[in-house]
Every structure is written in structure tokens, then in C-alpha cells.
């Protein structure tokens, strides 16, 4: 990039052409207040707070590129007074009585008010009341607190790829709307929650988190989401000196997701009401009886010769390794973990691709962040999409081609304009796989069925259902335990307690869930990621790693 010379605050500096004044100032560690600007969204120039003076003229630094001979002044009285005036106008337009706003204490507009010493309103306030949209399960939109910075609009489209939000009317009457002005809860919103994360004010808030506390009352823990095999980077806000999560944000600096999350990653921990296994118990003729960890060990030791061990992809590598080191070749995976056709593209390839064939998976419902990558290209006008599915697939609404799964062969023939598309699939019937394998121009991204499917695969833990007298299960997804013979004695180490489990298992041992233990897993790119321990175990659950280590020692002594 070509370098040019400009003056900033009377110092001559060499800067790269093409950058904005704001970018250059940031690199020089010079502070310019901003409101509508947010990396990595495109600059909009909506709020005017980032004004600076260039040879006597006020310009917005977030949208103005540097140019030769510029003589920039950051803090002249003219600049400071203009910013104050703009802030005064922002505070008086709409309802900014912080006193009855849940965002107070966490608000960028309020912080700017503090920064500029605003101690009263200069103008009387605009009294028009806009109606609040409370139709969404997780999000409240309150236009009365909106400063029309359009961060939400840009984030929903440019980053999350959902293109739900837009604006309506003009001037002071402008409103942020969903789709063609329908309530958010009835719109095409996927509940990714990014708009609430980026909104600088109380205009879009996550209705649970906003009542749980302010950022200063939380500890921020960087961790990877382990709800699926994408492994998105998250910032988890945990209430200080308490044992609950206030909110989960996408980590804007994460190479995997760049800040975007899906509904599951953002909200499921906040709304986790699944019944937990609160202690360990064994079933006899009268029901369940409590069991302590020594007894569990004894029981397993006694059955050592007749048991097979099953694990699922909710376990971390460290736990899987320990289980393998104890039970050796008796360890199997309850679910398939082998790709039917291995991936030959990475997430980064996917982000840059323009041709997508999605087969048999609805990316608005699972692997939502993969959905974001596809949608931001397709809806952004830069990508082509074909969907093959035998079930309802919500992506069909935006795809250029939609086929039933059994039309795959002919359908692929019709995609003439697709040069080397990426096929995104999870699990498909054999004949479908054969058709795909016959094509040469296709690239593949396999969506592993479980979070740590790749870890299981790397440890060579095969999927095979063996019938035996006793089964030891470690994991979260008990679904396939049904496939075992009725007389099999099942000992399940698991965090949640669905009703079928009570019916089927003979011994149930409560373990911590994903937020209460830490460990590593491999995402679908084969990247080793870390899930941090955020919460302390809530019940008398057993520490799986500790238990396995003790058991290992006991069985070694024998």
C-alpha cells in the first residue's frame, strides 16, 4: 500500500493510503470517540461523533480516507463542542432517561455522556412513544432507546448473514424493523442474538441477560462453544461471586466465527432447564437407591470381564484418553464418527467460497454459524446455493435451486453454472453418497454429528454395537442406548436425566455438564479447542476425570 504524509495534531506522520482517519488514529493510539463504528462492520457515518477537523472543516473520521496534505486536529474546541452538541441531540431524540433503562451502566451512549461531562439535557426531549416489540423469545426491541446507528442492521447482514433487519421511515421517525415490518418473533430471524450484542444502547437487548447484571459485575471467560463441532469462540460473562452465566457473546477476534454465534451457542446455557442427574443411584426392585463412588468402582470392577464401554462425542479428549487407557480395546463409540466423504475444505475456504450445495441439513436450525457463512454470501448477492433435502429445509426459501433428495443425480446435472461447489452434508444414505463420489468437481465439508466426533475418530474409537451382559456408558446423548438388548445391565455416567434413561439404565451416575468441566476437543477443521470450566457443579455430581483417575489406580493395583 502506498504511503502518504499527513499531519495529525501538528505531528507529521506517514500513513497508508486507503485507510480511514480513524484507523490511522487508532494505530497511533490516539483516541477518537465513536458510537456507530464497530469493527469489523463496514463504517456507516451515522452518528457523527467521530468528527475531527481537517483544515478547518469537520469530517467524520470513520468514513473519511486519509489523503495527501491533510492537516487533522482531533480535539479543537470546535470539534469538542460539535461532539457535545451531537450528544445532546442524541440524548434528547427519543427516550434516554437512563433512570428507567435496563441498559444503564452498560451503555455506550451513557458512557459518552460521562466522557463529555453531560450533566443535563440542553433541549427538551422528544416525546413520541414508539411501541416496544416483545414478540421474540429472547430479544426485546425498544425503538425508544435507539440512536439509529445501524450497527444491528449491519451485523445481522454483513456478519451473521441473516439479512433480517432494515429500516423504515425517515429522519426522527426512522425505525429499525424486521423483514417487511413484521414483529421480530414472526420474522425470518434465526435468534443468533448478534444484534443485541452489538447494539450500543438499550434498544435491542437480550431479555434474560439484561436483567442479570452489568458487565462490571461479571468475570469474562474466553472459551469455545462445545454445543456442536464448529467450536465457535465465545466470551462468557459469569456473575462475580455467583454460579450463573449472565450472557454469552461471540468473540469478535475468533478466527473461527468472528463474533457470530447461533441460537444454541448464545442462549441454550441461559435457558438450560433440562432435568439433571443430581446424584448416583442404582435400581433395584423398589426403585432407585443412592450409591457412593466406592460402590460404583466396586461394581465396575466386578463386571470388568463382561463389559463393553460406550462413549459419545460430548466427552473431551482428556476424558476419552483416560477411558481408553483403562478399558483399552473395549471402548466403542455409540454414534458414527467417521466421515462418509472426508472434508477437503476448511472453514476459511467455506467463508471465501461462492458455490454451495447443502444436502440434508437445515443450517438455520443446526450448525447455525455455518449457515451464517453460506447465507452472507448467498443473500449478499455473491453466492449461489442449491439445496437437496427430503424434509422441510428453511434454506430453500433463499436457494437458487431446490430439489428433493431423491432427485440428486438429475439435480446435480442442472447445476451447470456451479464450477467447483462445496457440498455441505452431515449424514446421508449410502446411495446418495455413491452418487456424490461419482462427481469430480465437488468439494466437501462434513458436519460431524457430535461435538467431538473428530476426537473420537483420532483416538480410533469405532462405532459398533456389541451386545454384552454389561454396558458402561459415558456421555450426554442416551438415545442409542435403546438399541441394546433388554437384559443388558447399563451403567450410565451422564449429566442429564431424560425419562427414558430412568427406564432403561440400571445405574445412573450424575456427572458435570459442559459448563461445569473443562477439556479439549477437535472441531470440524481438526483444530484443537478448549472448553473452559465456567461454573461449579451444581449438584452432588461426580468429577469424571477424578473418578477415572482413581479407578485407574485401583485397577492397576489389582
Amino acid at each position, binding site marked *: 500500500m502506498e504511503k502518504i504524509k499527513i499531519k495529525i495534531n501538528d505531528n507529521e506522520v506517514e500513513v497508508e493510503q486507503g485507510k480511514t482517519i480513524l484507523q490511522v488514529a487508532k494505530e497511533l493510539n490516539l483516541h477518537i470517540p465513536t458510537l456507530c463504528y464497530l469493527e469489523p462492520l463496514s463504517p456507516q457515518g451515522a452518528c457523527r461523533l467521530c468528527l475531527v477537523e481537517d483544515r478547518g472543516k469537520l469530517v467524520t473520521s470513520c468514513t473519511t480516507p486519509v489523503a495527501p496534505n491533510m492537516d487533522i486536529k482531533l480535539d479543537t474546541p470546535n470539534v469538542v463542542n460539535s461532539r457535545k452538541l451531537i450528544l445532546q441531540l442524541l440524548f434528547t431524540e427519543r*427516550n434516554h*432517561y*437512563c*433512570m*428507567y433503562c435496563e441498559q*444503564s*451502566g452498560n451503555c455506550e451512549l*451513557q458512557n459518552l455522556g*460521562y466522557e463529555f*461531562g453531560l*450533566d*443535563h*439535557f440542553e433541549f*427538551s*426531549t422528544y*416525546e413520541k*412513544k414508539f411501541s416496544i416489540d416483545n414478540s421474540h423469545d429472547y430479544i426485546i426491541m425498544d425503538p425508544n432507546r435507539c440512536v439509529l446507528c445501524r450497527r444491528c442492521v449491519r451485523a445481522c447482514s454483513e456478519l451473521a448473514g441473516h439479512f433480517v433487519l432494515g429500516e423504515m421511515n425517515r429522519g426522527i421517525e426512522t425505525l429499525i424493523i424486521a423483514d417487511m415490518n413484521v414483529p421480530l418473533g414472526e420474522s425470518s430471524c434465526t435468534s443468533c442474538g448478534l444484534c443485541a450484542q452489538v447494539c450500543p444502547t438499550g434498544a435491542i437487548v437480550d431479555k434474560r441477560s439484561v436483567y442479570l447484571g452489568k458487565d462490571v459485575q461479571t468475570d469474562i471467560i474466553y472459551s469455545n462453544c462445545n454445543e456442536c463441532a464448529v467450536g465457535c469462540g465465545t466470551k462468557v460473562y459469569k456473575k462475580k461471586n455467583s454460579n450463573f452465566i449472565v450472557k454469552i457473546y461471540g468473540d469478535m477476534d475468533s478466527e473461527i466465527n468472528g463474533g457470530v454465534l447461533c441460537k444454541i451457542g448464545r442462549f441454550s446455557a441461559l435457558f438450560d432447564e433440562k432435568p439433571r442427574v443430581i446424584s448416583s443411584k442404582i435400581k433395584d426392585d423398589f426403585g432407585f437407591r443412592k450409591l457412593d463412588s466406592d460402590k460404583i468402582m466396586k461394581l465396575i470392577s466386578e463386571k470388568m470381564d463382561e463389559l463393553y464401554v460406550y462413549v459419545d462425542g460430548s466427552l473431551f479428549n482428556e476424558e476419552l484418553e483416560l477411558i481408553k487407557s483403562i478399558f483399552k480395546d473395549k471402548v466403542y463409540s455409540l454414534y458414527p464418527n467417521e466421515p462418509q466423504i472426508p472434508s477437503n475444505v476448511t472453514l476459511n475456504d467455506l467463508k471465501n467460497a461462492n458455490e454451495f450445495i447443502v444436502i440434508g441439513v437445515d443450517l438455520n436450525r443446526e450448525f447455525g454459524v455455518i449457515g451464517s457463512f453460506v447465507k452472507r454470501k448467498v443473500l449478499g448477492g455473491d453466492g449461489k446455493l442449491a439445496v437437496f433435502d427430503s424434509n422441510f429445509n428453511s434454506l430453500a426459501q433463499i436457494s437458487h435451486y431446490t430439489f428433493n433428495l431423491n432427485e440428486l443425480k438429475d439435480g446435480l446435472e442442472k447445476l451447470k453454472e456451479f464450477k467447483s461447489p462445496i457440498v455441505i452434508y452431515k449424514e446421508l444414505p449410502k446411495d446418495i453418497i455413491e452418487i456424490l463420489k461419482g462427481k469430480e468437481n465437488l468439494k466437501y465439508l462434513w458436519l460431524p454429528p457430535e461435538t467431538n466426533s473428530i476426537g473420537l475418530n483420532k483416538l480410533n474409537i469405532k462405532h459398533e454395537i456389541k451386545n454384552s451382559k454389561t454396558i458402561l456408558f459415558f456421555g450426554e446423548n442416551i438415545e442409542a442406548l435403546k438399541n441394546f438388548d433388554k437384559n443388558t445391565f447399563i451403567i450410565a455416567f451422564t449429566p442429564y436425566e431424560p425419562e427414558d434413561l430412568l427406564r432403561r439404565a440400571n445405574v445412573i451416575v450424575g456427572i458435570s455438564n459442559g459448563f461445569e468441566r473443562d477439556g479439549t476437543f477437535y472441531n470440524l477443521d481438526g483444530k484443537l479447542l478448549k472448553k473452559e470450566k465456567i461454573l461449579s457443579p451444581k449438584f452432588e455430581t461426580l468429577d469424571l476425570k477424578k473418578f477415572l483417575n482413581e479407578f485407574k489406580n485401583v485397577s492397576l493395583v489389582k
Partner: protein
Amino acid sequence: MKKIKVASIWCESCSGCHMSILDMDERLVELINKGLELNATPITDLKVPDDDTDIGIIEGAVATDHHEEEVKMMREKCKFIVAIGDCAVFGGIVTMRNYVPLNELLKRGYIETESTVDGKIPTSPELGKHLPKVKAVNEVIKVDYYIPGCPPSADAIYHVLKEILEGKTPVLTGELLKYE
């Protein structure tokens, strides 16, 4: 030593700001020793300040015609007006009523609340009449200094009074300005 006369009133508000004044504790004595003299205040229970009052402190929003008269009287009798607390400074929590029609609001408050039996909207001529819109003090009279906060901290009030006593112009920054 020249005395600095201080008067205060509260309009539509919860009196929390006056609690914050008392919350200055021994620093109130320090200010009195420096020349501060409490004139008409809810604390001294005098209603009308002297004509030569120096500082008039106003808590609360202007919600009725009585409040309007009172703040105008304060302006006439006091050299400096200090608006304290979010209600006086911005209109505060009281402005919530600006978004609901007045008759609906009175009905809800006096008749329809779940715990009310045979309620009725008070009509005594002694009561102030509601203005159509709740206002911040500076929408009615000129205000010289502002201390926002709900309630403002005793530290902020102390800072402002001390600066005025020492002949300086009080400016709130940092934590003293923070609403919470």
C-alpha cells in the same frame, strides 16, 4: 466570616436527594463551619427562603402548577440554583408518565390498582394541578449547576457546595458524575 445562605425544596420526587445531603454526615458540619447556613429547607421545616439566599437547591421534577410556582420563587430569591438528582436535572423517573395520557394514569393509580377498594381520584383544591407534561427544572427556570444521579452521592453534593463556598465553579467529572 460571611455566611452563605442555602435553601432547598423538593418537588415531584422521593426525597432521596435530601437523604444524600444528610448523608454528608460530619462534612455537613464542616461546611457549616466554613460559613454555610441552612435557611428554608425541608430539614429546617421553613417554607420560604430569605430574599438574599445564595444557593437554592432543588430536588425533584416539575409536575404540577405548585411546583412551577415554587421553583420560580426559588429563582427569585436565590443567587445560584443547583438542580440535584435525576428528577430535577432531567425529569427522572417521573417522566414515565409523559408517555401515558394523564386521565388513564390517574385512573390506574387511584382506582384500578389491585389493592384499591372504592378508590377515587383526589380533587381537593389545595392540591397542585398536574401539568400536561413533567418537566426538568431547567425547562422552567434557569439552572446554574447540575448534580445528576439517583440519588447523587453525598460526595458529589459535598464537592459542589464546597467549590461554591470557596468561590470556585463546580465541575463534576469521573465517578462523581456517574449515575451508577
